């Protein structure tokens, strides 16, 4: 009988014996009970924790670990320095003014002009309205309202509805309405980072068909006055037609001169968007290249009689498609704002001028809707890779849009897991500076440098093809790279400025830690100091700012006619995240893990998925320890070695006492002589040999001639020989196969005596004392060696 009680980590108490064999048995309380040492090796299974984006088939996911994706808004830093030129300063260009007449002059080319104002009311003065939303001429002006995002009417003081009259080619009134204009200063906006949405709708009723039809569309503004086109010019007088809302602009000296169709009171607004300045990339996600944009502005600056024109000549050299000023955006992902509203990645989308395509898919990629503005495709099947999808192009599902903000309204119940693939054209208002990709995933160099974007003006009659350039400035404040190599007609300064100081500390100093070393009762506190030194050469360049830019102090070369460069921005890319930004989603908890429709497959693939709360029992599943327990037992407990138990019985007992999930590996140890033939079995004898097993071991030799009955051959125990044992059985019959094995008898000191001396303790051993030699036992025998004996 064996009783296992697993201890803590090590130590297994084993009591064995059956009394009849001379060994103690617990069932016989008066018999001695022996405690023996056993070996229990516990080895936990080896789990490989793997980090990756793809889950191997044999793995069980533990958690999703991620940080928030980088984006240009968060990770890019802009120091806007474009206001160094007074004509481009935000304060200068952010106001508005009025004038009466038909001409106007300005340093700036991009301005807003209007002759429409709100109507004066007692509590509010008149206010110029610079934008208009155009409605059909058949719209009833009394039915026109602007609604906010909650579809509530906004104050009518904020806009003005006018039925604009129609003129014939001779400039005479026809008596009809050309269009209904909703003049306003409102703007639709959506911030995809914050989700902040400002949206306006225009609602109007059209009764021209006899049945009043009320329509609500997104506010879609355009400037009240625009730069004139050919149709605005009288072909006879070559002057502006008197009734158009357009102007002609020409540059003369350091001013832009605007000619208007009539002499009246106009209002002019200088918006912040008309300054020349650098802006963050249009596509700012982590996968896209981050190209800084520069607004396509223009202004003239007079310095001591020399006119400097600040403009972006390379704006027109961009890759327009199909023609200037449009660009093609294919396969863009629309941002779902609310049910039906989608923000396109670009502003100023050209939905009126060029076809656009919007394909709505569910999360499995199944096409649900194919929406287009292209009437020639209406009703045709949408195909992908030449394969029909069963979905047909539909022009009716795009109900309205705002081209300025790039927000469209689809007559579709959009779910948050839908994707909207958008292909469209947009009007480019910016010059995209593509010489530097600021995405640190593509260009790690940006993390170690500050980039200075600057504009080289055209002095006097000089002109060049490119005006925007950059410097790459190292952490030490020295210029490492300059793109202005003279290849576009501008002065070549690259070779002169590389290695020289930029001229301004351009980074946040890394502070000393200020900690102190506590050395018993002595300590030290450190205060970090940092300074830069830009040596002043006797002649030549001081630094970039002093040498070339408008920001140079008086008397430095930058203030002269050879310089006057305008620094637009100092651009940096920083790491914003730390360990607290790491997001961990434990997939083993409820709500994580495996999709319901994949559970069966998952269980087949890896049964351990039942440990997930969602898949296993609601109250949880026992979590197996999954250890392997190595139990080492003396082999003499086995019947085959003279013991009382079969191997299966031992295994069953052991399994009964180890924990669930623990796999027992039973290893028997003991004296097991390894016998072999000492020599060829000739001479009608059989010689065997076996190694020494210790001086407390004796051996008996048993043999059989094949009848299965083993007979001891030796007459007295054979004492172990430290140098090895041999034994020869002589007098055998040639041609007969004999079997032979060696039986060991061991005398060992073991066990704690718990039996009274009267029950057979060795002489000198007292009750409860540790026996130096309690007993001997018939140890394990060797394997049976069979050999045919020859003559």
């Amino acid at each position, binding site marked *: 009988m064996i009783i296992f009680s697993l201890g803590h980590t090590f130590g297994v108490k084993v009591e064995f014996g059956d009394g009849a064999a001379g060994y103690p048995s617990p069932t016989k309380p008066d018999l001695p009970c022996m405690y023996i040492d056993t070996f229990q090796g516990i080895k936990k299974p080896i789990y490989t924790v793997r980090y990756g984006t793809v889950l191997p088939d044999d793995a069980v996911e533990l958690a999703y670990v991620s940080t928030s994706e980088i984006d240009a808004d968060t990770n890019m830093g802009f120091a806007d320095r474009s206001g160094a030129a007074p004509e481009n300063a935000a304060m200068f260009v952010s106001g508005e003014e009025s004038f009466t007449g038909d001409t106007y002059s300005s340093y700036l080319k991009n301005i807003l002009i209007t002759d429409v104002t709100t109507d004066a009311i007692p509590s509010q003065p008149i206010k110029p309205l610079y934008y208009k939303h155009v409605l059909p001429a058949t719209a009833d002006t009394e039915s026109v309202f602007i609604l906010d995002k909650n579809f509530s009417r906004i104050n009518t003081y904020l806009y003005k509805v006018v039925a604009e009259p129609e003129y014939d080619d001779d400039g005479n009134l026809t008596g009809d309405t050309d269009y209904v204009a909703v003049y306003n200063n409102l703007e639709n906006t959506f911030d995809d980072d914050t989700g902040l949405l400002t949206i306006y709708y225009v609602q109007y009723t059209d009764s021209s068909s006899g049945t009043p039809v009320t329509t609500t569309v997104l506010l879609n503004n355009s400037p009240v006055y625009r730069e004139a086109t050919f149709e605005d010019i009288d072909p006879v007088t070559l002057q502006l037609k008197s009734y158009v809302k357009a102007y002609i602009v020409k540059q003369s000296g350091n001013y832009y001169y605007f000619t208007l169709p009539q002499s009246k009171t106009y209002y002019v607004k200088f918006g912040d968007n008309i300054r020349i300045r650098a802006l963050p990339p249009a596509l700012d996600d982590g996968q896209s290249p981050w190209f800084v944009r520069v607004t396509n502005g223009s202004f003239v600056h007079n310095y001591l009689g020399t006119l400097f024109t600040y403009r972006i000549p390379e704006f027109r050299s961009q890759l327009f498609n199909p023609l200037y000023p449009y660009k093609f955006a294919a396969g863009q992902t629309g941002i779902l704002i609310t049910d039906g509203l989608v923000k396109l990645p670009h502003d100023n989308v050209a939905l009126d001028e060029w076809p656009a395509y919007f394909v709505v898919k569910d999360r499995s990629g199944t096409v649900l809707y194919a929406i287009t503005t292209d009437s020639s495709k209406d009703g045709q099947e949408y195909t992908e890779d030449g394969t029909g999808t069963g979905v047909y192009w539909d022009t009716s599902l795009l109900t309205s849009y705002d081209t300025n903000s790039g927000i469209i309204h689809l007559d579709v119940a959009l779910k948050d897991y839908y994707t909207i693939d958008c292909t469209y054209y947009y009007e480019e208002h910016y010059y995209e500076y593509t010489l530097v990709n600021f995405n640190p995933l593509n260009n790690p160099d940006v993390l170690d440098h500050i980039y200075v974007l600057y504009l080289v003006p055209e002095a006097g009659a000089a002109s060049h093809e490119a005006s925007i350039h950059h410097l790459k400035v190292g952490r030490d404040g020295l210029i490492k790279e300059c793109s202005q190599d003279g290849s576009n007609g501008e002065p070549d300064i690259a070779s002169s400025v590389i290695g020289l100081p930029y001229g301004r*500390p351009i980074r946040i100093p890394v502070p000393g830690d200020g900690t102190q070393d506590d050395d018993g009762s002595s300590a030290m506190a450190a*205060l970090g*100091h*940092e*300074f830069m030194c830009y040596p002043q050469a006797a002649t030549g360049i001081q630094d970039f700012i002093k040498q070339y830019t408008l920001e140079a102090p008086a008397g430095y070369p930058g203030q002269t006619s050879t310089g006057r460069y305008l620094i637009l921005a100092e651009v940096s890319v920083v790491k914003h995240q730390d360990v607290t930004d790491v997001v961990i989603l434990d997939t083993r908890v409820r709500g994580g893990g495996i999709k319901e429709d994949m559970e069966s497959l998952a269980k087949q693939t890896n049964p351990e998925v039942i440990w997930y709360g969602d898949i296993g029992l609601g109250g949880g599943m026992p979590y197996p320890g999954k250890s392997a327990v190595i139990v080492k037992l003396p082999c003499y407990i086995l019947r085959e070695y003279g013991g009382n138990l079969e191997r299966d019985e031992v295994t069953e007992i052991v399994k009964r006492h180890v924990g669930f999930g623990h796999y027992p590996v039973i290893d028997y140890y003991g004296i097991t002589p390894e016998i072999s033939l000492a020599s060829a079995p000739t001479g009608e004898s059989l010689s065997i040999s076996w190694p020494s097993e210790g001086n407390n071991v004796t051996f008996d030799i048993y043999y059989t001639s094949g009848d299965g009955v083993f007979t001891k051959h030796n007459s007295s125990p054979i004492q172990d020989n430290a140098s090895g044992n041999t034994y020869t059985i002589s007098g055998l019959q040639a041609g007969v196969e004999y079997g032979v094995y060696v039986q060991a008898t061991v005398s060992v000191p073991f066990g704690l005596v718990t039996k009274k001396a009267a029950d057979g303790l060795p002489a000198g051993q007292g009750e409860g004392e540790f026996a130096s030699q309690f007993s001997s036992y018939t140890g394990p025998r060797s394997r049976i060696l069979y050999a045919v004996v020859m003559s």
Partner: protein
Amino acid sequence: MTVNITWSENAGGSAITSVSWGNIQNGDEATAKDVYFWHDGTEKITNCQLYIQPFSGTYNGSASAQDDYNELIAWGDGASDEGFLLNQNTENGSSSYQTHNSSQGTASAPFTLSRNAVIGAGGAGTAGELDAGETAHIQVKIKVPSGEDTAGTRQFDQCLKYTYTS
């Protein structure tokens, strides 16, 4: 209990861990900066000594922390009024700057805190001691030799070592 030092640009002001000097052109001397420090012990701290050492924080200069330190010491060796300069007579109305060079102002030969730098002490007391509640006021400045022709950013540590009883 550990006694902690607070550095500040003002007496009793917010703690600072670094001083940024901006650009100092060769031949120029930066405008002196006031530095205050005090401790939070309940007993006075003693053996207060000031010195400079290579920058111990994350180095972001143009050469190495050791090179910057060596350069600063060499500047002080070249002329007594160049390099990193320390004025401990802030509270007695005088302005006498000590130069950090290879023989003084280093870890092995530090400047002992003068009682003339302790606000309200009137010069009284034992040099090198700063009592609980007292504030030391020093001025520091940097002068770059006119012959310096290497552009770049330099960093170094100004240190106060002291003994305290807990």
